[in-house]
């Protein structure tokens, strides 16, 4: 009885974490300084999904479902903006001198991922509703 919704809820949780990551990426699209004020652009983060759910309550449910196994930073190149007069431009003598590094976050990609995450979340909600309906139906066998 307990844990019948584990599979679908794990899917919902995973998609929500993905949405949170996307929201964080979009919010930090122009963050080029870190907390100490040094030029350290925000790196785009992405979630890694893995089948299985270690937080599930039963052994069987631990093999089914999905969970976020890691949130890793995208090691791709930063976005470069030519601005040699900016205090945060790359110094002369370094590669990309005169350019300012901006986070490697692309709005279009993030928006498309957001749409996909919402769609998957709704699908998981539908699956959870179907599970509840099946349980209610089975209970009516004796009621």
């Amino acid at each position, binding site marked *: 009885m307990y844990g019948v919704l584990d599979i679908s809820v794990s899917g919902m949780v995973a998609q929500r974490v993905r949405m949170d990551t996307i929201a964080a990426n979009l919010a930090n699209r122009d963050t080029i300084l870190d907390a100490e004020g040094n030029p350290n652009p925000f790196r785009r983060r992405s979630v890694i*999904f893995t089948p299985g759910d270690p937080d599930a309550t039963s052994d069987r449910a631990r093999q089914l*479902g999905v969970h976020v196994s890691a949130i890793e930073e995208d090691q791709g190149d930063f976005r470069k903006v030519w601005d040699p007069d900016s205090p945060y431009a790359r110094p002369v003598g370094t590669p990309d001198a005169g350019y300012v590094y901006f986070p490697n976050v692309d709005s279009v990609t993030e928006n498309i991922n957001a749409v*996909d995450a919402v769609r998957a979340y709704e*699908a998981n909600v539908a699956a959870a509703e179907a599970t509840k309906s*099946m349980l209610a139906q089975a209970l009516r*066998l004796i009621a």
Partner: protein
Amino acid sequence: MFISGITDTGALPVLEKTVQFAARRHELIAHNIANLSTPNFQPRDVSVTGFQAALAEAVDRRRARAAGRGPLDFPGTREVRPTAQGLRLRPMSPSHNVLFHDRNNRDLERTMQDMVENLTAFRAASDLLKNRMDLLNAAIRERP
């Protein structure tokens, strides 16, 4: 004794197997839905026609053996194994969709269709099961 004559009459064994199959398959479909975005995950299903064919053979054997009375011996298929706790599924039928860039060949629309159809089959079988049991109870209680 005669108790198994009551619990195995008519269409009850077939309905029982269908209800168990539909319930286990729902878990499988929910697992596929939860892993819609998981890279390197290929959703797998069990073959419904395979299960129904095996069930049809068992029904025919039962009809030939005892004119439709007695227990149903369902040996299962490669993917569906009867155990003491019901049925265990071993999904082997892959999805036939294109492989996306994350090496996941999900097909959201077909998966949702499978889920809804499976749910309807579960409902139909469990309603019919309830109906047959009610009839038996009416006969036993002698109250129509």
